[in-house]
């Protein structure tokens, strides 16, 4: 059932291999590390298929790595989408998003952060490039105070079709490439690893579900590109094996629980402006924690069995 696109994989992988890997050394994981996925809908959507997380886990089955996906649709390097109605504000100022993110990163205390921005910013065109680079730089500086291992992931091109005018896509892709380059420059400048999805996904179509967001197949390819660029060890079982599927399903279950914990329906009552209207509701998201731990334990034991 996992689609006809798999046949295209070798071609993509070939392209990846031809792309000289820019990272100076292999990305290593120590025992019990915590990884955070940060970015726009690229990561928010990723929690529903768990491909990237599965791929990394399969390279390090005995390392007990935990993952927290805090991608947020519509977000940018300024973390504008993360602002919330808190502390009396009905809607926070977009500028407060950055502080909220900093706070959250500090609480999560990750060992590695994968960062995927640039899509939303690219609609500011050429004129927005400087702001993007500066914003990304500021973001990296903030993140580096909490975590030394940062991995930047590039934008990828829009795909033709889906009723979107062709000329529009051509235009956007020129811009998306510029933003990918800007991301790469920041990575090089600051000495962080960079994953080039743009080149990989420029080779062929069929990996998005709407022209701009990856399908589950697309995520599998993206995971392969990430693993390749970071020179991760080969997965201990095949990515399309039954074992891997089982792990992936458990990861998705864990991710879903975490989403309800972190961004519950009724956020306004639980964390926000309407907080004092309810008593019971506020307690509930915290009660999800043990279920998250349960799934995490399940993932670990599945990985250990490999």
């Amino acid at each position, binding site marked *: 059932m996992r689609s006809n696109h798999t046949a295209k994989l070798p071609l993509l992988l070939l392209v990846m291999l031809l792309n000289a890997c820019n990272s100076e050394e292999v990305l290593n994981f120590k025992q019990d590390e915590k990884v955070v996925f940060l970015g726009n809908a690229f990561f928010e959507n990723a929690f529903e298929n768990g491909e990237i997380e599965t791929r990394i886990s399969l390279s390090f089955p005995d390392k007990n790595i935990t993952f927290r996906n805090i991608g947020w649709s519509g977000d940018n390097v300024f973390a504008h989408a993360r602002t919330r109605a808190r502390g009396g504000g009905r809607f926070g100022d977009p500028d407060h998003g950055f502080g909220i993110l900093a706070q959250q990163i500090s609480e999560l205390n990750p060992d590695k952060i994968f960062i995927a921005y640039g899509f939303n910013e690219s609609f500011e065109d050429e004129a927005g490039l400087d702001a993007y680079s500066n914003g990304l730089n500021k973001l990296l500086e903030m993140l580096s105070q909490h975590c030394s291992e940062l991995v930047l992931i590039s934008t990828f091109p829009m795909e033709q079709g889906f009723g979107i005018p062709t000329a529009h896509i051509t235009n956007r892709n020129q811009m998306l490439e510029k933003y990918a380059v800007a991301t790469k420059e920041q990575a090089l400048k600051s000495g962080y690893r960079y994953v080039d999805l743009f080149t990989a996904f420029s080779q062929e179509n069929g990996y998005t579900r709407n022209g701009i967001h990856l399908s589950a197949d697309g995520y599998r390819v993206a995971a392969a590109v990430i693993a390749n660029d970071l020179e991760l060890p080969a997965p201990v079982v095949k990515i399309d094996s039954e074992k891997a599927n089982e792990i992936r399903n458990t990861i998705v279950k864990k991710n879903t629980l975490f989403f309800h914990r972190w961004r519950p329906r009724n*956020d306004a009552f639980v964390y926000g402006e309407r907080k004092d209207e309810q008593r019971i509701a506020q307690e509930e998201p915290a009660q999800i924690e043990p279920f998250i731990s349960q799934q995490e334990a399940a993932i670990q034991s599945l990985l250990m069995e490999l």
Partner: protein
Amino acid sequence: MIRIINRKLILVALICLLAPWSSAQNATYRAFEDLNSIDPPNLEKELASFSLLDGFEISLYAATPMIEKPVQMNFDSDGRLWVCGSHIYPQLNVNEEPSDQIIVLEDTDNDGVADKSSIFYDKLIIPGGVLPDNQGGAYVANGDKLIHLSDTDGDGKADESEVLLSGFGTEDTHHTLHRLGWGPGGKMYLLQGYYISSHVETAYGPRHLNGGGLWTYDVDTRRLEIFTKGYINPWGHAVSYWGQSFESDGAGTGFGHSFPNAVFRASPGESQSLPALTPKSPKASGIEIISGKHFPPSWTGDIITNDFRANITDRYSLEKEGSSYKAKLEPTFLRSSHKSFRPVDLAMGPDGALYIADWYSPVIQHGEVDFRDERRDHQHGRIWRITAKGRPLLEKPDYKGSSINELLELLKAEENWVRLMAKQTLKIRDSEYVMVAIDQWVKALDPQDSNYEHHCLEALWTVQTLNLIDAALLRLVMKSTNAGARAAAARVLYYWNEKVPGALDLLQEAAQDDDASVRREAITALSQFSSTEAFDIALLAYSDNMDASYSFALRQTCRMLSKYWLTSLLENAISTKTDDSAWLFALMSTEDPRAAQPLIDLFKQSEKPDPEILAVLGRLANPEQLNFLTDMVSSPGNQHTNMAATGLLTAASERSVFPDENKTEALQQLFRSTKDDDVAIACALTGHWKMEEFTDQLKLNLRREHVSYSVNRSAADALAMIGTGDIGDFLRQTIDQDISVNTTKLAVYALVKIDLEQGIEAIANTLTREMDEESIRYLIRQIIRREGAFRALSHDLEGKTIPPQTAMHAIRIVQVSDREGVEVLMAALANAGNVAIESNDSNYQQNTVALLAKIKDGDAVNGKTVYLRPELACVSCHKIKGEGLTDIGPDLGSIGASAPADYIIESLLEPSKKIKEGYKSSTITTVDGDFYQGAVSFEDANKIIIKTAAGSEVSIQKSKIKSRETSKMSMMPSGLVETLPEEEFIDLLKYLTELGVSQ
């Protein structure tokens, strides 16, 4: 010794009188029964509870277990009714799997009763909307996502789920994405409510929407756009015969007329908004427009909406007024005496009947009643069907079996849904054939036919639905003899805009149309062009006599196009004409600092300049430009002195921007004025500008008698702002001299700001005098948010004697403040006043229960007279169905229908326990030490405006805010009903619990 009787103690006493303790347990049970009269669900009883307007009949179409609790419903082209529902609402349980359903209902034998029900999908969390795609699948609003479900193997169950859009906010489950429907031009319309922040990524860029709004989504091109913004609980959208949109609001404004770029109340960051058509109406859920042959012809075009709180379905007639409409409430259509009847959605069905989705629950919303309150119903739902007696039902057209030409003929139908379904079916056909057929069909239409104009418009909408463009057809409809058609064609141009050759010529004509609604649509369409020329054309539509919708549309277009025209103007590429009020309107609309210089030029050039410009300059001008205002103020006898000074004050107080010249001269002139208003502004400016040379003027004006309070107050403010030299000494002397209560209060107010310690000492001294409650409250309010102030005041009270009355009042005020040091201060006050504080641990629940049992014996008529008593002050803050002095508190027009009695009792006794949505107050402390409490009425990046309990609005610069929190304290003072004798309290409760309940 005087006893301070705590309000809870009164209740304990009440209970003793009311209920023998021995039967308290039984009373609990009975009272809760009384409380909501929760009858077990019984369809026959509910049916019998309806009273319906003569000439109509109501019957049951479907009920649980055939459906979930219904949220939204939509018919498909096969006549099947798709219903999304939720037993999970208001909140998913911890670790619960999503299981809300989409159900498809069918009436296979056409007897008006659904006889087949199938679950299409059951993995949802509180879906807010469902819209069938007429190809076996459906679009569903599922929290943060819009998804499309398809049934690829035709077994009537969804087997594929595709995410179309994600990133809609999840803050509040009764506001998340909801209500899906098709517009006449083929776009999908979707709603979101107030607490939602959406950040949706699309191929055309991210779309951000804070607060309520109506979205449009183009399924074919995947384009998502904001149609209108605002409303707190937008809860329905319907489109009229001529394509105009109406939105209902479930937060007490009824419904309004919507068009692109329109903004309604409560849209974050928007400085202006449009009123609804029925501003005094109760909350309205769902909206439908009557059409078709089954309902009486006189009903065609009428609006039906639900007052879900009062268990009522209402009808309004519409009449064109200017560029918009006016609405009139007609006799009640349907009402139920059954408290669980909650009409939430409406739809005209394929048989011409009106269908009502009944959420069925005694409890509504989820703020007032706990998420997990057992009185919530999670199981039952109904769909009712209303038919007109003696009028034949309609046959459903066979859309799928019809040829393209037959479908085009259906565009002539009277029924809005038939025409809509015909277009949706044509969309699935081969568009090349459809386009050829449309061309022929339009040519063959008889221009003498009284509906010819509308038929042509439907053809145009069909082309729009196909996502194609037909400029010739557009031109034809733009030149229609019918204004409704011309307006609708201009709306099509809003979407096709620059893709139509000669579009601006068409809009130039439309902008000068005889009909105001056509001009309004032309103005709105022009906002989608990118040129100065489009702006020039929009300005042609300006007149001195514009209605609210019209002028709002023009304002929006001026703002949206300002990146073209204002830029050209500043580059001198175009020039304003003197005395041109249209230009003035455009410049003032922008709220853009770059407009300041052109506004000054316009003022200078004009023979009779509009003084409003000067006020606007206060919001936009830079220091150099403000000199224009100081020049004016310093020249003796200038007729615009007051307006110019107001502008200067706005600049200073809202933006901290000051002129750099002529400040002394300007103040000298202002202080010389005989008008209080001028002097008050002079004082304020002295403070903001820190002009110490005028300190003596301030001292004088603080103590001046026989002038307006604003002069004294302004002087006090200014003294505090300057605060240097001997000002502190002067204030202490003023307080000691006790010239008048007002002067003393103001001197304390200023002293606290300059030197907290001395200010507190002065308060302690002042409390020893005889004083009214309001003054005591005023003094304490000055220090209530200051750190350590309560302890300091306690210390200063040591050894002092204060009047017992003062001690009592002060204790009560302090007690509810919830600040650090409360207990110490209460003790100090009690000691100084020689009074005692009675603490208690009364059983609140039992009090409520006993009161509840008594309500039924209350006298509502007498309750009303109690309510109206000035000393209870209910009327000074609350309105009832729009009637009243201010809207500081919520409208109580249907409080009895919407809130359980225990909630009402609690709100009266402990106002801060549950604060109504939208009436929460914020407390703000500024870096200057000012403290404000009130409801936020406006907020943008730079300022925040709060409405205080006294009803006045205060604007605070964000840069000056030190701390800000949502107050746990209600703006309603506690203890208002404390002094009421038991009987009167019961009568008041009886009156309130019956408000809005159908009799």
